[in-house]
């Protein structure tokens, strides 16, 4: 207790304060040592993974890390049989329509971003170059994905499947989550508490409990095995509204008076949502997109159940898992490493680029529960 301490005691502490600098230095040195050791532990598996993906010797994990024989064969194996042709964009009428529509939307979006007028005097430029680049990137990605013919190449096929699922989830789940969280945060209507309680209760049931029923529902719609990719998109998006907690917490922090003043000015609820809340919700939108996009890359359980026995509709997790756990572990281990590296790189880069938003999301979520 502060007030209990008398002057004498303070005086006794004085020499200690003087030697504080040396003490501080020792503490810092030990912290550095701990952090360096931790960094090594944290990085080692990933460094080993990369090293072993270049290993020429076959077999599973071996007792040394640096390959005796360096090779790119493992990567070559992953891309064996893949073909790329621009013809896929115009091969028949639906393909042409799809090409025209997606590119038109993309170009329009880019133009809109580039010609955007500044909303307030503090914005320097009139165009939003970052936004335009993003649209361009997505457009390019879609076009390239359609040109890749991966019927004879397992890994590329799996990668494409996962990418497709991830892109669709990123869009649909985000819309679902944002609409639910906005509604529950902002509007007061009959049944609101009921909905929140029902979601809370449903959330306590383990997810895999309903696997067989979901499988059957998908089977009825023809969305298993060959149709596993749209099936997985449907399942992962359908109930995604239940994960509204974090973004609701975010919306709760935006003052309600903003909505009210806009409503007084004659804006409808829809306009408030679109014109006032959404521009302010950029961090949480990016967080939701990031989470929705990253989810499918690690989805093993349900994906393997739905795509069972149909190699062409595996995702990367299922395909690579089967390589090491069901297939020939000795023969496929280094290929698994190579595949893992190729999957990890884009995800990691994306995550690191958007890390700021992730941190905001998890911190906000942890505080608000």
């Amino acid at each position, binding site marked *: 207790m502060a007030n209990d301490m008398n002057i004498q005691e303070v005086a006794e502490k004085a020499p200690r304060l003087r030697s504080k600098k040396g003490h501080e230095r020792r503490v810092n040195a030990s912290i*550095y040592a701990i952090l360096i050791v931790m960094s090594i532990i944290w990085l080692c598996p990933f460094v080993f993974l990369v090293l072993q993906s270049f290993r020429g010797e076959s077999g599973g994990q071996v007792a040394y890390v640096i390959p005796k024989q360096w090779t790119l064969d493992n990567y070559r194996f992953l891309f064996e049989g893949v073909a790329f042709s621009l013809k896929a964009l115009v091969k028949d009428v639906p393909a042409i329509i799809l090409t025209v529509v997606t590119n038109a939307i993309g170009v329009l979006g880019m133009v809109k971003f580039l010609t955007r007028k500044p909303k307030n005097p503090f914005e320097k430029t009139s165009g939003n170059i970052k936004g335009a680049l993003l649209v361009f990137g997505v457009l390019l990605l879609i076009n390239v994905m359609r040109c890749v013919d991966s019927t004879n190449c397992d890994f590329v096929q799996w990668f494409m499947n996962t990418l497709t699922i991830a892109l669709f989830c990123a869009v649909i789940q985000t819309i679902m989550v944002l609409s639910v969280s906005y509604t529950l945060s902002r509007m007061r209507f009959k049944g609101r508490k009921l909905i929140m309680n029902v979601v809370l209760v449903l959330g306590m*049931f383990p997810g895999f409990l309903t696997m067989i029923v979901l499988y059957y529902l998908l089977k009825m719609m023809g969305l298993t095995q060959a149709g596993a990719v749209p099936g997985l998109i449907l399942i992962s998006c359908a109930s995604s509204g239940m994960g509204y907690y974090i973004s609701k917490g975010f919306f709760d922090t935006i003052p309600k008076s903003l909505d009210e003043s806009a409503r007084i000015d004659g804006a*409808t609820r829809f306009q408030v949502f679109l014109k006032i809340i959404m521009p302010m919700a950029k961090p949480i939108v990016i967080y939701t997109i990031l989470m929705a996009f990253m989810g499918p890359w690690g989805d093993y359980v349900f994906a393997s159940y739905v795509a069972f026995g149909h190699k062409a509709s595996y995702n990367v997790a299922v395909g690579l898992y089967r390589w090491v756990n069901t297939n020939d572990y000795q023969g496929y281990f280094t290929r698994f490493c190579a595949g893992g590296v190729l999957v990890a790189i884009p995800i990691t880069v994306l995550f690191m680029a958007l890390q700021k938003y992730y941190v905001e999301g998890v911190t906000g*979520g942890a505080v608000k529960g």
Partner: protein
Amino acid sequence: MVGESMNDLDYLRLSKPQKFALKMKKFFAGLPARLLGALKGLLMWFVNLFKGIGSFICDLVTTYIHGDWKTKVSYTVMGFGSMARGQWLRGILFFVFQTVFNLYVWFFGAGYLSKLGTLGTVETVKKGRVTVYGDNSFLILLYGVLTIFFVVAFIYTWYVNVKQNKMSEKILKSGKKLKSAKDDMASLLDNQFHKTLLAIPTLGVTVFTILPIIFMILVAFTNYDNQHQPPGKLFTWVGTANFETLLASPDNKVNFDVTSTTAESAALTITAKNGDILTVNTADVAAAEAAEALTAAADTEFTMVEQADGTYQFEVFSEAGESVSFVGKDLLTVKTPSFSYTFKQVLLWTLIWAFFATFLNYFLGMLVAIMINKKGIKFKKLWRTILVMTIAIPQFISLLYVSKMFAADGLINGMLMNWGWISQPLPFWTDPTWARVTIIGINIWIGIPYLMLIATGILMNIPADLYESARIDGANAFQTYMKITLPYMLFVTGPYLLTSFTGNINNFNVIFLLSQGKPLGLDLAGNAGTTDLLITWLYKMTVTDSNYKLAAVMGILVFVVCAVINLVVYNFIPSVKNEEDFQ
């Protein structure tokens, strides 16, 4: 004694343990009152329910008597009143819903609904080469539930339809105008915007979460497993038998009495290599021989066949491949593991795991965050980025790789053996205790970065002058941590700890990708391994064993465990109770 007479000041004077004890005391002292309150609430709920139904019917009747002919027609043709009064959009929607409902129920749903009581009686039979399919219990249950959903939705919509008419009449009588279709559409983007936003998510959750969960809850009361798999076989209702299997089944003991007459009264206990499975109470020469064979073969298969006279034939395949068999009762006691024992073991490990996974990660993660954020530590961003790698890289890559690293032929054992530190591979995945510790250890590797991120954000918010004054008062680092950092963190992240704990109970990925629940426990039933959590065991039951009935029971029990933890903890965390406080 305390409690009632105490005011806030007295409370503040108490020490930490005293406060905690007081809280616990209040909680338990309040339990009877709370239970009574809950009972009263339940009773009132029922009373209100019946009152509600009464007034509901009363309302319907009076509306019918006082309503005009348009309203009266609407009782049978939904939406007629709305259409006749010019609200064509609402009218058409009501009418379309009624038509779809009728078509569905009469041509499809009614058949399934009527069989819901038995789940089908006509067996699938093979006539020569042709299979004649009978009832499909799975479909009957699924579509039966779906039909009930539809009926409830229909009754509600029908009620809304009637109420609409009542309201419309009232509005017209008062001389006002009704809303046009255009107004309706506009209000969907304005006052009724929540309906627009929630429509698709609600539909998705209803079809893909609520319907399946109700289906599986019902499956828990049937005998749906690999012996009763539609469309080949039927399954049916069995009441609470599955719950008894999982919660209260005794260890199966089968007694044998060898009919051989040359019995010597020497007790013989056979201990199998991996735990005690077989006990022989008395032994004769033949039984002893059989027992030896059993011991040798305890790792392999043995089968029991019940004979017509109530005795058992016991067959063991010895390592040489020859079959030793004898017939009898009451001599050999064979103990096979029960599901209830296994459930208790798995539940225990699940709770231990969740405890360590939550709190070890929590404190270590906080510690790392404090270290990185300490004044004078450089390259903060670098340390953080390195740690965050484990979040960014998909778990199936990192965990699978790490799991292989710890395998008997993996990198770690290989290196240690090369350096000559060990001669035998360390049993990371083959010894139960080793496996459990390894898993908790690797989970720290996965979990610290999350906590580090969360703690960093919160630590920044602790007012710096608190630390400043603590330092002036002469508190050392440990004291400031215990008196300032920890209480603040615990207060702010209380709800997070709760969700994290229940999340860890259901942490499938870490266990599945690292050990798949292995090593298998010989004293465990249902293929359970010693590192299996309830959720991974549930997965095994569903995918490997097709034991859907027990999987369903397990799902319900996991729910109960999570719900109980939530309820208890919510009583201790005031900050999550009132959501409006945050706004």
